[in-house]
């Protein structure tokens, strides 16, 4: 192949992977903060 095809697929794979992993990390972080807040309220 010409190199352009591989570059196109690589750009799509890298961009979507970075965005998807970022989403999962943000979700985990916000859920952990919610849990911490809930635990702090119970403690009080």
């Amino acid at each position, binding site marked *: *192949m*010409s190199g*352009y*095809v591989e*570059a*196109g*697929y690589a*750009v*799509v*794979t890298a*961009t*979507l992977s970075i*965005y*998807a992993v970022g*989403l*999962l990390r*943000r*979700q985990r972080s*916000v*859920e952990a*903060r*919610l849990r911490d*807040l809930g635990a*702090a*309220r119970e403690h*009080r």
Partner: protein
Amino acid sequence: MSVPRLSSRRLRSALGVSALLLVGLTFWLGLFVTPPAEVMGNLVRLLYVHPPVAWVAYLAYGVTTAASLLYLWKRTRRRAFDLIAAASAEVGVIFTGLTLATGSIWGRPTWGVWWTWDALLTATAVLFLLYLGYLALRMVPMPEERRGVRSAVAALIAFVDVPIVHESVYWWNTLHQKPSVLNPSLNVEVHGIMAWTLLLGFVAFTLGYAWMTWTRYEISKRRLLLEEAGLAASIDDRMPAAEVVR
């Protein structure tokens, strides 16, 4: 007989895994199984990705527009519609960026240039900037409802560019070819395994869009809960002091 309930979280995970598998299958078919085209040769393989990502960008902005309309109409105004509009626009911007990037990578060996001020390319770049502006507007600090209304109006204005992008190849004499699938006569000009791979690409990226938008929406919803809970907690903290003062 009881029907097992599928939690929304499991459904979302299943959606994400399905999207991942189908995108992987599209890539495998596109790169290794489908034959090179007569005229374009191996470059045709980029077209299993480029039209599907462009379609997802259209879809994302369509969803943003629909959610914005529902938010603007007072009878259906819900915070959820504002969050869905924002989530879908964010994913749409990612896919518009990918449309421009894959188009540019295809254009270099085909047209001899990475970029040209062709009507369709320019309209797509404007679309990208319009929705970046929409996302920037959402970050301006202002009361929640005012931000929701202003963003919804901005989304409706930005959407005007979507039909311009799609129709530009018919309205102007452009370098970009006319759509092979999403054309007015719905006359699909691709056949056999190449057509099935392209169709799979449309399904796979649409599922990927659905997972991303849903996940982004859930994050925004939880952030709001967190903000409200944080606010309530700080009010609780101040209450005893207020009691003493009184």
